[in-house]
């Protein structure tokens, strides 16, 4: 196993009296493709939000690439190389597709490099990313003109523009057709082959099984399984969580 890129230890989060996450331990190795599943309300998105800094965890710690993230704001974590795509696409509606990609280049990449990319470099990066996701011919369009699958691709392209070490794709395939799901999984695998560690949170099991090298299951804010995908889905506890007693 490669060195860890992400280490979550004893992480806990409450919303008032409701325990959303309790004692979550999770280690993700560099270059790994991890699937994270669980029924609705199991705490998957809360975990992502705690890792990315959108929510503050009450207990435990998150370490990214050897750095403790306690007290670090979301944009600071992004600048370290942690990118995420959202469950519902959140494009910058007033900007063209190309400008949506430009933002992380201007802010995250420039900050990490400590120098400014030139206009030509920004243009090249935008073009390359949009070609990769298949949106090169729509770079002058606005998000409102895109289809659902294109919107998802834009979301992934914008996350990729951060030049991430870790990409967290939160239900990137919700609402897509079978062939569109296939496209997105292929895209995520391509990104992983380029050296990006990917955590995929998803309900579509065919996509999860095709994508994941390791599978983690959350139920009611607790981790109940972690291991080889084929073994995990046969785990009686996982079957109980999904199918009932």
């Amino acid at each position, binding site marked *: 196993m490669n060195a860890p890129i992400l280490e979550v230890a004893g992480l806990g989060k409450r919303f008032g009296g409701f325990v959303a996450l309790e004692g979550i331990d999770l280690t993700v190795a560099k270059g790994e493709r991890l699937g994270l599943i669980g029924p609705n309300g199991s705490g998957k998105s809360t975990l992502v939000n705690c890792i990315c800094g959108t929510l503050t965890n009450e207990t435990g710690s998150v370490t990214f690439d050897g750095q403790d993230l306690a007290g670090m704001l979301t944009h600071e974590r992004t600048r370290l190389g942690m990118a995420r795509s959202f469950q519902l696409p959140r*494009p910058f509606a007033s900007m063209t597709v190309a400008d949506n990609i430009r933002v992380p280049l201007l802010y995250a990449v420039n900050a990490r490099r400590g120098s400014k990319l030139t206009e030509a470099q920004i243009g090249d990066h935008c073009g390359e990313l949009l070609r990769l996701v298949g949106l090169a011919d729509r770079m002058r369009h606005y998000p409102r003109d895109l289809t659902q699958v294109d919107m998802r691709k834009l979301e992934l392209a914008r996350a990729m523009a951060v030049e991430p070490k870790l990409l967290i794709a939160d239900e990137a395939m919700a609402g897509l057709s079978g062939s569109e799901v296939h496209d997105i999984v292929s895209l995520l695998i391509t990104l992983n082959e380029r050296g990006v560690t990917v955590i995929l949170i998803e309900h579509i099991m065919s996509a999860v099984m095709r994508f994941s090298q390791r599978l983690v299951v959350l139920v009611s804010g607790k981790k109940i399984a972690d291991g080889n995908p084929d073994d995990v889905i046969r785990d009686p506890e996982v079957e109980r969580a999904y199918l009932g007693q």
Partner: protein
Amino acid sequence: MRSGTFLIVAAVIGAVIFAIARVIDNEYVFFAGYTVLQYVVLATAWNILGGYTGYVNFGSAAFFAVGAYSTVFLHKLFPMPVPVLVIVAAVVSGLVGLGMGYLTLRLRGAFFAIATLALAVVLQTLVVNWNYVGGSRGAYVIRPQTIELFGSYIQYLFFIMLVLAIVALATARAIERSALGYGFATIRDDELAAEASGVPTLKLKLVATTLSGAFMGMAGAPFPYYIGFLQPQSAFGLEYAVNSIAMPMIGGTATWVGPLVGALLLGTLQQVATVTISSAVNLLLVGILLVVFVIVAPNGLVGLVKSAFASKAGRKK
């Protein structure tokens, strides 16, 4: 057009405007022109926060008044030339903007708007109870009749406001085309996605509140010399808060052109209405126009023109 070239072109246009006003040789032109230009600065300043980042400021009058009262304070303490007073007002109002930004960092939408309104009420209460700057009874600031180079003092004030308008417009335009402009737009569109893209949203909000406040204060700094007698009701007047919002909304908030068009149109209309009908009808006019534009052209005149061009281009295809 590069920012330097834009500044030169704007300066040339400004020089032409000033020359024409001098040729007309009527003091009223300078009085009316000063007010219109003052609104160009106020509307542009409001748009830096309200238009670019989407944070609606209902307390423009407070920043304008901070600028005006810093002039009154210094006029009594240690009289200085107006350009210096403008710079001091920018610093003071900018700091008030920064403070407001800090206090309202986590507020959004209507809550932010209400907080800015509250700031105006708090500052007005402070000024009303501050005797040194005249308190509720007001303060006289007698301007000299003449000044070297310009002759009439009102021409001098007009010139200062013209320069401020050019600086405000050039700054707004430069922001729009910079990384800062992209950052502001991401805040307006989606703050969560902005943070996830590496944009330091809290820091940029502070930059926006500071810049916006500073320009509003600059607009207010020469005001005591213009009006001669400053009282809280006039410095914190409703017309500043309403016009600062209405002018960019009517012109269009997405670009620097919108506040300019809105301020020129509405400011001129108000001056004409003041002379031909009554000064009391000003805000009624603004209100009617604002309602009409919100319904008919929510993106303002600039948006209306853009969509007309877009549909024309679409028909050609």
